[in-house]
């Protein structure tokens, strides 16, 4: 694996940028922790590999992957997959909550109408 000074710096800056965006969103409460966890893990991994490219080489040899770049692809896809799955689960939870709210809104609306009707009847008496 050949690392020229420019690609070395490019790698580190990219990782820092990604981490910076995630942390800034967290800081401004635009992102909740449980949604940010995978992005943080990915950012930190990218930074470690960017600063010490030998760690990638070491990890690839450890698992038995001949081309270290393939490990990068594998981990990236795995992280994206997990995030996607987490979003689907979250969406399902939200749908269930929305459904419950819609049902309660309809029932409260009905109750209000009944109360209003009773109030008008009482006023007429």
């Amino acid at each position, binding site marked *: 694996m050949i690392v020229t000074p420019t690609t070395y710096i490019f790698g580190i800056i990219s990782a820092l940028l990604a981490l910076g965006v995630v942390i800034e969103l967290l800081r401004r409460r635009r992102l909740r922790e449980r949604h940010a966890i995978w992005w943080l893990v990915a950012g930190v991994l990218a930074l470690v590999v960017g600063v010490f490219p030998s760690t990638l080489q070491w990890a690839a040899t450890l698992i038995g992957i001949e081309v270290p770049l393939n490990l990068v692809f594998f981990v990236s896809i795995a992280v994206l997959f997990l995030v996607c799955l987490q979003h689907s689960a979250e969406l399902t939870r939200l749908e269930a909550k929305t459904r419950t709210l819609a049902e309660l809104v309809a029932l409260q609306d*009905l109750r209000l109408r009944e109360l209003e009707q009773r109030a008008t009847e009482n006023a007429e008496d």
Partner: protein
Amino acid sequence: MPSALEKTLIVMPAFNEEASVAAVVREVFTKLPGVTVLVVDDGSSDATTREARGAGALVATLPFNLGVGGAMRTGFRYALANGFDNVVQVDSDGQHDPSNVPELLDGLDSADLVLGARFAGEGDYVVRGPRQWAMKALAMFLSKTAKTTLTDTTSGYRASGPRCVALFATHYPAEYLGDTIEALVIAARAGCVIRQIPVSMRPRAGGVPSHHPFKAAAYLARAGMALVFALTRPASSLRVQSK
């Protein structure tokens, strides 16, 4: 048996049924004096709510379409909150003959959930092809789960007793087909007794049918999936406080 009728809530899920809902509500009131009718307008874009209210029914209007499952859970919640013992689901398109309701309620004496089955000898309701095979296979599996003979598991015409009302108010499934198939599995696994009685179906009085023939294959696949997931779901998620 007027006392049973007074303790009974007729729930009619209605999605864009302005053409038929008023007539069905009036028919229910004529044939079942003393009963309370709750029409759940499932996010219709037409005058379903106005028509049903004009006919004298209580109407709960959902802000958007939730499907039959969502509409029914609204009905079960209303029944539980307002002290109704039984809930009978009746379609708002006029397919279900309200004169069968007393028979369904009689069935509740010895069961918690009574299905009005369309193929059990009465009427001339026919389906063919993959849809029929799907319904047969479903009936076979669900009969085993419910420990009784069921021939029409996707029938929407059903009466729930107090136990099932309490169970369904929290656990009625929302997914497509979940409302019929999964509800049966939920009831069976919660220990409810399920029975079926024969009813006849009539052609729809109006509205657009929710199933088209070319969707038969998709129906089969989805029904199978609904069943598999319903059966493999953890049983611990089906707790209900006993009254």
